[in-house]
């Protein structure tokens, strides 16, 4: 983990209530897709944990949805503004576990961390299919970006306004895969857990105090013991998750 000052290079809407922000500076502590950063905002005591959508040598990209006053404040920020950020938080996805045909399942803003993962998988020559679920057409983002990296991209919308009508699990029917990675709201993760036919990894969200394992604010129970979502997660292996069915 590092505490660094990053400069906003870009901050613009890409879908309904969804923004992309590019932050430049020392991002060397960010080492794996699936990690997150924790952003300090003027006027708020707690930082805002946001997953990393992409990371290159000197900049990282986050996608965020405006859901409260913190993200609303972020949406008003302009290029050139500087942010106090804790970087390189969480374990991230385990790329070494990918084998055979890989499936990526993203729900809403949960698709964000899968983008960097898709880029890493492409670099390793892995055959990946992405299923991206949204409520409606206006919510869709990054479909062309995923298409550039994945052999196949399947969109699903709850109202049927684009792609498969229904949830990501409806789109999973008929897709063959040997390993999967997923991120999205918890009800979706539970549905993917039940529908999945292989081993895989789940990225979780929880209200956090610190983001680096100090406060025990985000602990959950797993098969292998108590885990802090921020430090021992946010990515958990399917076999660790203590969901009844």
């Amino acid at each position, binding site marked *: 983990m590092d*505490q660094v000052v990053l400069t906003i290079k870009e901050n613009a809407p890409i879908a309904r209530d969804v923004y992309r922000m590019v932050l430049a500076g020392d991002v060397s502590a960010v080492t794996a897709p699936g990690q997150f950063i924790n952003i300090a905002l003027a006027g708020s*005591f707690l930082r805002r944990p946001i997953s990393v959508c992409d990371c290159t040598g000197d900049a990282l990209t986050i996608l965020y949805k405006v859901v409260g006053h913190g993200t609303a404040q972020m949406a008003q920020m302009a290029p050139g503004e500087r942010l106090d950020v804790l970087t390189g938080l969480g374990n991230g996805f385990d790329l070494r576990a990918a084998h055979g045909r890989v499936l990526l399942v993203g729900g809403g803003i949960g698709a964000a961390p899968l983008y960097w993962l898709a880029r890493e998988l492409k670099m390793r020559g892995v055959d990946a299919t992405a299923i991206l679920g949204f409520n409606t057409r206006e919510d869709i983002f990054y479909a062309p970006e995923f298409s550039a990296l994945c052999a196949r991209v399947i969109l699903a919308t709850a109202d049927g306004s684009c792609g498969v009508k229904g949830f990501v699990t409806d789109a999973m029917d008929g897709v063959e895969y040997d390993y999967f990675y997923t991120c999205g709201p918890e009800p979706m993760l539970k549905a993917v857990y039940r529908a999945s036919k292989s081993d895989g990894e789940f990225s979780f969200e929880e209200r956090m*105090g*610190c983001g680096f394992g*100090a406060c*025990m*604010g985000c602990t959950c129970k797993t098969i292998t013991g108590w885990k802090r979502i921020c430090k021992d997660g946010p990515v958990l292996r399917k076999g660790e998750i203590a969901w009844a069915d």
Partner: protein
Amino acid sequence: MGRLSVNLCGIELDNPVIPASGTFGYGAEFAALYDINVLGTFSFKGTTLAPRYGNPTPRIAEAAGGMLNAVGLQNPGVDAVIAEELPKLRKVFHKPVMANVSGFSTEEYVKVCEKLDACPEIGWLEVNISCPNVHGGGMAFGTDPKAAAEVTKAVKAVTTKPVIMKLSPNVSDITAIARACADAGADALSLINTMLAMRIDLKTRKPVLANTTGGLSGPAVFPVALRMVYQCAKAVQIPIIGLGGVSSAEDVIEMMLAGATAVQIGAQNLTQPFICRDVIARLPAVMDAYGIENLKDIIGGAL
């Protein structure tokens, strides 16, 4: 002995800055960030006899100038702390550590203190009779002078280490509890623990915290904490550790002027992980600005 040193119950601290229990784990996360030997000491995570998972999530909520937590004393239990955490700590921290002890009965406090008394790494026992986030324990002892005195006496009987009683602000007269602990033989007091609070989510119309209520900490509580430290410093002769919303070198000095011998920093560690190191580094310049030669000279300076 430097300009920053203070003496806490017979043990010399290089400086008065102590990360507060519950915000610093057992030291490992922060030892990975900076050399934690720059601290006066730190107070480790509240430890009970048996392992405790704590409360369901969400355990954290935001507030203006602070945060609410309802972690509920998650800890691996005293035996695991002694067998696993203290050996790890010994490798990265070479000063006496403050052990924070929680319990649900006088017997439990006694048993945990007995076990920790045998650990050479531990300098002080800080007895938490003020956790607002668990039922049937913690704060129940810290809101009744008789119960507070009973725990103090019982713990003092089983340890030779200095006993610090950690007090709750959720009382109408904190000096009554402070006097009861002092009269029962406490070596020092620490105050304040968090203030009982709650938030409601407008969308769900339900409490944000799964536990309904939680403890408020952060800069919002600093003036309340300062007032209580001042009142207790007038009421008792034993040393006081001041805490509650401390977030700068200036706050440390203000707490000491109110009567604190040492100062703990809590919530701020969670949002500014380097805060304790930075406050310690800044203290000499702030002392110079206010004409303070030695920090120990200002303890109780406003009384």
